[in-house]
Every structure is written in C-alpha cells, then in structure tokens.
C-alpha cells in the first residue's frame, strides 16, 4: 500500500524481527509449530531462526494442533515463554480446548497460583482466495473468553511492538495476524527498541463527525474510505482497536463523545462479532452522545469465506462499501 522507503518493513518482517529480538534478549522464549524450523514457517515468519537459535529452541512439531497448544501451555506453566504458531486460523479448532478450556482458565482456576506467559500466533483472514479453510476469522471465539488477551494489529509498527508486549506478558495472548497484510502492508518501523502496550487502541486518522472502528486488514480499507469521503466534507475519525481483549473502552468513548456517530467494520461475521459488543458498550455508556444508530458493516453470516472471486468479493468489506455506509451515516 506504500512505496518502499528507508525504515520501511512489511508486517511479516516486523513479526520476524520482534520474535528474533525477544529470543536474543530472553532464553526462555522458544518457538514451536508446524514447519517453523528449516522451512521457516509457511509464511516465513521464523526464517533463519533454526540456524541462529538451534533445534532446541525452534521446534518443528508433528502435525497436531491440540498438542502444539498444550505442550506450549505446559512449557509456559514451567516458566518458559513459548511462541506457538498455528499455521492457519482454520486449523486452530483442534487447539481450542487447550487454549480456551485450559490456558484461559489456568490462572483463575488455580486462584492465581500459576501464570501462562504464552503467545499463540494465528494467521487469519480472507481476501486471498483461500476458500472456506484458509480464510477464517476466529477472533470472536477468543474475544468472548475471559483469561486470554486478543491482539489483532494492522500495521508493521503495531505488529512488532504488540508482539514484543505479548511475549513479555504473563498471560496467554492470542496474536492474530491477517495473512493479507503480511506482504501487502508496509510501514515505518524504527530500529530502536519499543513496545506497543496491549489494551490500547490507536486513532489512525483524526476526524470530528463519524467514529469508524476497525482492526486488521479492513482497517486499511477504512483509512482509504475516510480519505475518500473527506473530499465530500465528511470528517471521519478512524480508531484502530489493535487489541480486541481487553477493549480500550476509553478511546472509543472519547471519540464517540466527540463525533456522535459510529460505524464498526470487521471482516468477521456480523452476529456475535466484536462489533456487537462494541455497539452494546457504546449504547450503555455513551448513549446520550449518539446522534444516529450505531451501524455495523461486517462479513455476512455465511461460513467464511467462499473460494470463487465473485463470492469472495461479495463477502469482503471493501473501501467502496465503507464509503457508502459513511455517506448514509453522515446524511442521517
């Protein structure tokens, strides 16, 4: 989306850098998953790792997601800081018991005796001709569950800073990486050390008339849409959630108190999605500031996401669709 320039990196490079730097900093950080060794991961997130850190820290696991999660959880219980890679979100389901049934409840269920400094990296999302089993959005399931943190960055800067924060966190962090952003989205990443705190949203575009809330790939479509409608005199504030759980309520409330109108955009299915919770929160907490119904532009309630381009395009939120929704909301 940007021209290549000095200090610019892709999302996948930022993720690789974050892990490499943390592994150099802390011997307790280990990586495990399918093809993470010699192959460097199917998306090359761990390219060069086994050469630098050895097979003792970069574990090529059998094709078995439940135990990737479970073994990483066990190692975290002992005090390591494992980064488990689930190759595609679509393959995360066998790991759900370990992640949501076990890891999420470990601290609570032991009355705070154990902690789980575990990161589970999950490439997710569509728009890549992945069909029903290489395109899924799984965030709502994790978002619903107390005990995990859920992070979904959109830019290289945020991806690197949030992944470092996730590795240093003492709780299980579900780290959702939108596959389409891996190489498509480039951006400035400073050489010096930094961390982006978990739980903080970021206003990516200032505006005064509509609050546009999003995360992940479609956040970039939202930014394009905001620039497009600015030409019509519609001033849109784009809030990048960055972290889904815990939600940054204050940043959302502050923006809505200012604008009075809200559009929530996500690629995940509409019903029971992150947008539903945000809409409910805003209705409860800042109702008197609202000048229009809270709108959602989300994936329709079909199993994500069809293979044929006509069907996939019909599913995806696009800049055009977002522009249309913003204009309707502005006219309300």
């Amino acid at each position: 989306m940007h021209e290549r320039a000095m200090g610019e990196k892709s999302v996948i490079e930022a993720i690789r850098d974050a892990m490499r730097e943390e592994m150099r900093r802390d011997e307790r950080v280990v990586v495990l998953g399918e093809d993470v060794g010699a192959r460097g991961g199917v998306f090359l997130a761990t390219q060069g790792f086994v050469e630098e850190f050895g097979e003792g820290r970069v574990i090529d696991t059998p094709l078995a997601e439940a135990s990737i999660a479970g073994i990483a959880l066990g190692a975290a219980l002992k005090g390591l800081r494992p980064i488990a890679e689930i190759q595609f979100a679509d393959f995360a389901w066998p790991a759900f018991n370990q992640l949501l049934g076990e890891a999420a409840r470990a601290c609570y269920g032991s009355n705070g005796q154990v902690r789980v400094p575990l990161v589970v990296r999950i490439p997710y999302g569509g728009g890549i001709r992945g069909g029903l089993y290489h395109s899924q959005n799984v965030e709502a399931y994790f978002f619903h569950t107390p005990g995990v943190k859920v992070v979904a960055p959109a830019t290289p800067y945020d991806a690197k800073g949030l992944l470092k924060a996730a590795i240093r966190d003492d709780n299980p962090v579900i780290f959702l990486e939108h596959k389409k952003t891996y190489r498509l989205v480039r951006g400035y990443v400073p050489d010096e050390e930094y961390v982006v705190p978990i739980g903080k949203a970021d206003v990516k575009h200032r505006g005064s008339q509509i609050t546009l809330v999003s995360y992940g790939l479609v956040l970039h479509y939202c930014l394009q849409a905001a620039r497009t409608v600015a030409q019509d005199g519609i001033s849109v504030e784009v809030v990048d959630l960055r972290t889904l759980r815990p939600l940054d309520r204050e940043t959302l409330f502050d923006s809505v108190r200012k604008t009075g109108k809200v559009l929530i955009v996500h690629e995940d299915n509409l019903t029971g999605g992150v947008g539903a919770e945000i809409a409910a929160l805003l209705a409860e907490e800042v109702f008197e500031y609202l000048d229009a119904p809270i709108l959602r532009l989300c994936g329709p309630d079909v199993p994500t996401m069809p293979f044929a381009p006509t069907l996939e395009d019909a599913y995806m939120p696009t800049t055009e669709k977002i522009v249309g929704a913003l204009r309707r909301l502005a006219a309300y």
Partner: protein
Amino acid sequence: MGPEGAEIAITRRHETAGISVEEVLALYTQMVLVRILDERILVLNRQGKVPIGISCQGHEAAQMGSAWAALRNGPCFFFPYYRDLALKITAGVSAREALLSFMGKAGDPFSNGRQFPLQGADLRRGIIQLSNVVAAGLPQAVGYAWACRYLGEETVVLAYFGDGASSEGECHEAMNFAGIHRVPIVFFCENNRYAISVPQRKQMAIENVAERAAAYGFPGVVVDGTDLFEVIEVTRRAIAHARTQGPILIEAKVERLSPHTTDDDDRRYRSREELEQARHRDPVRRLQQYLLQEGILTPEQDRAIWEGARQEVEEATRYAEASPYPEASTLLEHIYA
C-alpha cells in the same frame, strides 16, 4: 519362620521393595486415612455438604506407591487427574485441606473454591491439574517436562490418567511428542476398566494400554496397581528410565470399588458379582493382611490406626464445616496474572 522354629532367611516383600518397617507402617497409616476420608466424603455428599465426590477406593496403592517412590527419587512434579485423592494426600495435602476442597470452602489449596475438588494447582506440593477434561493435562505435562529439561533441571514429571482418557486424541499427541523428544516423563495409567459405564472392551481392541507405548518408541509396563510394593518398585525404575532415557508408560491395573462419582449409579451397568470379585483386590485390605500375617502389625495396633484415622477425619470434618466459603468479592480475582 520355618517348621520347628528353624530360622529360614526369607526376605519379606516390603524389604525386597527396599522399604523399611517404619515406612510401610507410615504408608499403611496414610492409606487407612485416605480410605476413611474417602468414605466420609461420600457421606458428606449424601448429607448435601459436598456437591460431588470422586472416590479413589481401589486406586490407593497405585497412587500412593507411585507418588511415594517419585518423592524419594530426585526432583519430581505431578500432573494428576480427578480420581487422585490418595496421590494428593501422599504429596502432602492434609485431610483438612482435602475436605475444604470437597466442600468448596475458602482455604482450599487448589483453587480456593473455584473448581471441582482437588483441581487447579498446589505448587507447594508440586501439583498442577488445571481441569477435569480427560487427557487435557497430558500434553501440558509433556510441555512441562520438556521445559524442565530445557532449563537444565533433573525433574521427572508424572502424568496420571485413566483408561477412558487413553482414547482421547490428546493422549496420542502427548505420547507421540514425548517419544520424539525423549521427554523426562512417566505416563501413569490407572486402568480400572471403566470409562464411567463403558467397559474396556468397548474402549479399545487390546488388553493393555501399555502396549501402545511401543508405537511411540518407548517402553510400556503393566503392574498390579493394587500391590503397593510392586507399584513402588516399578515406579522407581521408571523414574530412573525417564530421567536418563525418556518417557515410559506404566499401566496400573486397579479396581474401581465405587461408582464413577456420587452422581453415578453403577448398578445400571456393573453386576454385583463383579464388584464383589473386585473387592478381593482392595489394596487397603491387601496391605492390611500382609502386615498382620507378617506380624508387622498386631490387631490391636491395627484397630488403633483405624481409630486414629477416624478421629483425624472427624476433626477435619468439623474444621471444614465450620470454615467459611470464599467471599463473593473474590469472584473477579485472578482472571489475569
């Protein structure tokens, strides 16, 4: 003693197992305590004071023998399962603490009243048991053991599960990974031949769970899980193996002398004749008979041990009943570290 009073050097069973008289008496005293405690928990359930009881009757020798051996053979760590009251008592949990846990009272060392009894963690006793989802703890135990070795520790992990859990995919995944990486772990299967109501012949087409170990590239051994001495000997060897060569699977053949839990009625699926037969393998009675026959214990001393256990459990019951439930205000604590 031989005929005519002639001295014949017969080494007694506990001695061949390398256990002193004092130790075997201490083990028996603790086993009696576990039995009385287990029976009391069932009574308290019928009185409405314990929401659920999961009896370990019939499993005592397997749990106590393995834990006892582990605690005396270098650093170890336990990933038990939900039927492991005897193991937890052996690891140091008191009767008072156990009853607090079964009643869901404040001071329950495992979860402070958040979980089913004896679940969560008791790090002071080297125990983690996050849930009662069967086999879920096995990959965690493997990861824990792998991490111990990564950190340069000598720790051996003991991971417990039932025959029912052996059908779960996570059991296969855990053993497969452990075999590949030669993880220092003892898989300890307490096979009582029932997954609630489903008998072993409907769970697997083989006779011994231990046979599966070969497919993962490590040894599997079958042991009479009602024989305390045999369990101790086998576990001791298994721990040495795990520490130096990697995983090993012990399958302890035990009896479940009670229904699955207090919510189960085993008369619907288990004949009374079969249960009567199983009682002949009651590990508490087996050890008692051994001690009396060998003259290690007199009937009077035995009665005193049972009476002492009853008094301890009586006192613990009063203590737990008088203890408060956790404050409602603690509901929101420890969701995150």
